[in-house]
């Protein structure tokens, strides 16, 4: 199914342990290829940094100029050899091997180990025709671990608590670390560095969510910090670190109460009401039914919530028939401080329905892609938790569409599946220009149609990414309009291939002014997690103007996302 591109995560980077899962390509061996005097070889030895101990069965990956990958394993003496190689530039990376977390991924010629293998690592070997390169040795750094215990206020061990390890504000890619029956956790596979270790206890038993109580555990970082500023750094140098205990903190909980009225203004009977944390999971998710219009949700910790109320609609998610009662919903943002919130009135409304039409500029309809194009109502990037659930519909062959069954929430109109080279030029709702804007459609009568105009009079520039003056294949360019009004809907993480020369297409863009910068995968991830950092990026990015038909390749320098 086609997905709207906004809100998509950056291309996931490969965890060290996952390396071997993705890289198995054919290993060129002498029997696979016709012997040729032009073919060369690369060989070397994989050892442990420091001890010099050979690492048997390590996974060694060779990445060629066009991105092709070959993987082999080292012999008992840690040796590897790739043969039958055409002349060209190659990167070589080694990791400890299938399902081992003993050492870190290392690229030949890199000073430091890596957490993940870049899509296009920098080549370290240039092979002349027929050249046999020996001595391409790689020393692997031992992976390190942080261990400790999770304790409650009485010093009792807590099991089943989720642990997150953060390095420079970014979660380390670790898979589901939980404290065990003794309250102990072990976060492993870490490179040397400064870390914070944080824990989240959802408070549930295996029987299900527990009844609301007057206090709840909140996210706590070692040693007992409930805010980033009071958390202690854990320095991991060359040994595993033990006794990094976390004493879980509690917060008082509060209630949200009020009434729900349906679209006709009557108290809603048996409406479902829930509060979902926005930007935090602190309060957990709670659902109650109204009783004569009244609801009362207990056990919420302070923070921002989205109250969601729902009445009628399909009985089960897969029920596609008209429901017995028309679906009514409401979304109300609520802030909870250190007090109960009472007297809320939630007014339900029926699902909206808007018809519309797509117009291709010049009247010419290009051939559609196979799956056709779809219109969606996307959620702005700064409404976390709601971004993944867009309303979507197919555009019919006559270029009309009907969006229906959506409710009052900030949204923007987008198109997915457009043919190459085409881009949305404008979106009009009635007589309003809402191009790139976030709108609550129910604020307008649904009768006015949406007109989406699509053009191929666009720029299709590319970026040559330069890291300290050298082309880089490991960074990504980010491009976004200069106009801050369009930032909430900007697609910052398009999937675009990067060539060996570090050139990345910037997509199809409307003529206009843009900010452009290249970011490391870490900074890109940080920008994804914290959309408000786009403001910081705008301050260090280059400002460029793209005109119609521009296809130039411009130099884009790597920028560091300013730290806050």
């Amino acid at each position, binding site marked *: 199914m086609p997905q709207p591109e906004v809100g998509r995560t950056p291309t996931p980077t490969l965890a060290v342990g996952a390396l071997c899962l993705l890289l198995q*390509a054919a290993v060129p061996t002498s029997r696979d290829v016709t012997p040729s005097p032009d073919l060369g070889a690369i060989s070397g030895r994989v050892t442990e940094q420091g001890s010099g101990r050979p690492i048997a069965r390590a996974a060694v990956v060779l990445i060629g100029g066009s991105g092709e990958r070959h993987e082999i394993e080292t012999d008992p003496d840690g040796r590897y050899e790739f043969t039958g190689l055409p002349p060209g530039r190659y990167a070589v990376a080694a990791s400890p091997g*299938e399902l081992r977390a003993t050492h870190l991924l290392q690229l030949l010629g890199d000073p430091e180990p890596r957490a993940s293998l870049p899509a296009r690592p920098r080549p370290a070997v240039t092979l002349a025709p027929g050249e046999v390169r020996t001595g391409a040795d790689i020393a692997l750094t031992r992976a390190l*671990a942080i261990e400790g215990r999770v304790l409650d206020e009485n010093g009792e061990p807590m099991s089943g*608590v989720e642990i997150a390890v953060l390095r420079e504000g970014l979660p380390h890619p670790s898979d589901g670390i939980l404290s065990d029956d003794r309250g102990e956790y*072990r976060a492993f596979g870490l490179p040397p560095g400064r870390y914070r270790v944080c824990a989240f206890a959802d*408070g549930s*038993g295996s029987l299900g969510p527990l009844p609301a109580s007057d206090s709840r555990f909140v996210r706590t970082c070692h040693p007992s910090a409930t805010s980033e500023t009071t958390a202690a750094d854990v320095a991991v140098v060359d040994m595993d670190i033990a006794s990094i205990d976390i004493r879980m903190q509690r917060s008082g909980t509060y209630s949200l109460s009020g009434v729900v009225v349906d679209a006709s203004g009557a108290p809603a009977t048996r409406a479902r009401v829930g509060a979902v944390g926005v930007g935090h999971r602190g309060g957990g998710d709670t659902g109650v*039914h109204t009783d004569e219009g009244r609801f009362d949700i207990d056990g919420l910790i302070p923070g921002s919530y989205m109250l969601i109320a729902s009445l009628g609609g399909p009985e089960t998610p897969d029920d596609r028939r008209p429901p017995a009662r028309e679906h009514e919903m409401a979304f109300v943002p609520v802030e909870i401080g250190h007090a109960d919130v009472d007297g809320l009135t939630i007014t339900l409304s029926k699902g909206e329905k808007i018809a519309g039409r797509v117009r291709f500029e010049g009247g010419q309809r290009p051939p559609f892609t196979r799956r056709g194009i779809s219109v969606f109502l996307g959620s702005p990037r700064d409404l976390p938790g709601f971004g993944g659930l867009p309303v979507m519909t197919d555009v019919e062959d006559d270029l009309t569409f009907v969006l229906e069954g959506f409710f009052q929430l900030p949204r923007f109109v987008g198109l997915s599946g457009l043919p190459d080279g085409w881009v949305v030029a404008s979106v009009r709702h009635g007589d309003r220009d809402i191009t790139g804007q976030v709108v609550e459609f129910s604020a307008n009568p649904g009768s006015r149609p949406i007109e989406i105009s699509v053009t191929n009079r666009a720029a299709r520039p590319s970026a040559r990414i330069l890291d300290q003056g050298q082309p880089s294949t490991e960074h990504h360019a980010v491009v976004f309009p200069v106009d801050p009004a369009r930032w909430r809907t900007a697609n910052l993480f398009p999937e675009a291939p990067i060539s060996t020369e570090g050139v990345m297409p910037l997509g199809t863009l409307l003529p206009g002014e843009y900010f452009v910068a290249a970011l490391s995968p870490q900074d890109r991830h940080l920008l994804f997690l914290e959309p408000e950092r786009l403001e910081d990026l705008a301050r260090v990015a280059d400002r460029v103007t793209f005109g119609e038909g521009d296809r130039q390749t411009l130099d884009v320098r790597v920028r560091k996302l300013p730290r806050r």
Partner: protein
Amino acid sequence: MTALLPFLLVVGFAQEPGSGPAPAGTSEIRGRITDAESGLPVPGAVVRLTAFPESMLTTADGEGRYVFRALRPGQYLVSAENPSHRATYLPGGYVDPLRGSQIALREREVRADVDIALRRAGVLEVRVVDDVGEPVARSRVTLRSAATGARIFVDIRRGTDDRGVIRLYPLPPGDYTVCAEPGIGRVFTGSRRRAPRERLLRTCITDAEGADRTATVSGPGTSTVELRMRRGRTYSISGTVLDATGTPSSDAFVSLEIHSDGLSSGFSSAGDGSGRFAYKDVPPGEYGIAARSGGSYQRPPVQEGYLALRVVASDLDDLTVHMAPTVEVKGRVTFEGPAEPSLDPRMSPLMISARLVGDQSRGNGSTQSGHMYPDRTFAIQGLFGRRTFAFANVPRGWYVKSVHLGERDVTDVPVEIGKADGELEVVLSTRGAAVSGRALDGLGNVVPGIRVLALPADPDRWWAREFPSAAVSKEGRFELGPLRGGDYLLVAFPAVRSMALYQDPDEVRRLAKQAERVSVQDGERLEVLLTVQR
């Protein structure tokens, strides 16, 4: 229009703790939760009160005491488990030595003695190493009870750590089969070049002869066991997808489904526009190749094909997946009897499933399903190919008497699904055949905890995960039915293995070998004597 539904799921309206058995009654259940060994209270223990199908939770206070107030008269069950974020005890239920676990509560009655003593749990610490003794990280370890064959659900979020270690808990004393898998979804779709490769494969702890060896948890505390993973060759799977006209499909989306230990998961897709697909480095196991073309966000694929595969010890190349146009089959359920069954909206509705003939894979495979709506209609989307139908959640006392697709009787015969088939008419009835009798051991003694199962004699129908069954009474008697007339394989087996039957198709095959074949006609009452199988 369904796009907002996930919200409801996220918010979790389905679960409504605290709003269970309607309050405003006059009765009360209270008691104390203690440690079975020391007799000390278990403060914070989570206590569940169940009045089927609803339940509510509370927690024990500092003295281990709990109370459920304002209850209405009725039948209740009480169970308790660890306080939140503790893993000390095994879950336990209240059982009265004379009256059993059901508590029959009268008006204004206060039951103050509903005490539960929790037993301390055992822990199995498994260390997984590879064939050369190096620790295996991020491996998934699964457990089955040796006694019941049932999978033990432990927290699947966790894998082994960098030392190869994982602790599995809370476990009751007993013997366990322990298996480790390298993780699923690890199949690579690659270039044409072939490279046989070795990798770690799913391994269970076995003895020298290769038979499953069990790990014993003798009681509270930690038992340790080491598991050495096998390494072995992987294979390639490749072939062509043909569309309904028989030409290689230029737009098929191909995915490889992995069926492992009763779980279906792990998609990876391939397809290069020429109708060719190739997966390399595939470990031995069960797979399905699904090919889909056309369709969109709102519409199911226009054409679809499915091929179930078993990779044993060779590459599977030059396979052909035939796609056919998909059809939505709509239908209606008729209840034929003196009165319609009462359909509780909180219970799972009747499920109608259709599966390709010959698909023997574990898990869902080619099965497509639909649920009966309250108005007795249903719809199954995305059907194609030659299929058989099966049913689940059949109301108690009813059986599926007949299934017609348009004019054709498809009750027991496979049918090629096509465009102009008409509606699927399903008739449920209360007046079928009945089989009753005695189930005794080889010496003629009554054995407690036995069930009798009626498998259809046709192995093509064993993919259904619900079969008529009945408990054997203390006198060794059972009453099975109603059943549709036909040939059945009857087997009496320990009821504790019922769960395994549901989870593991091999268990069905094993039971079928021990079964006795009978033939009954509609309306007939048959009396049989069965020997209990272990």
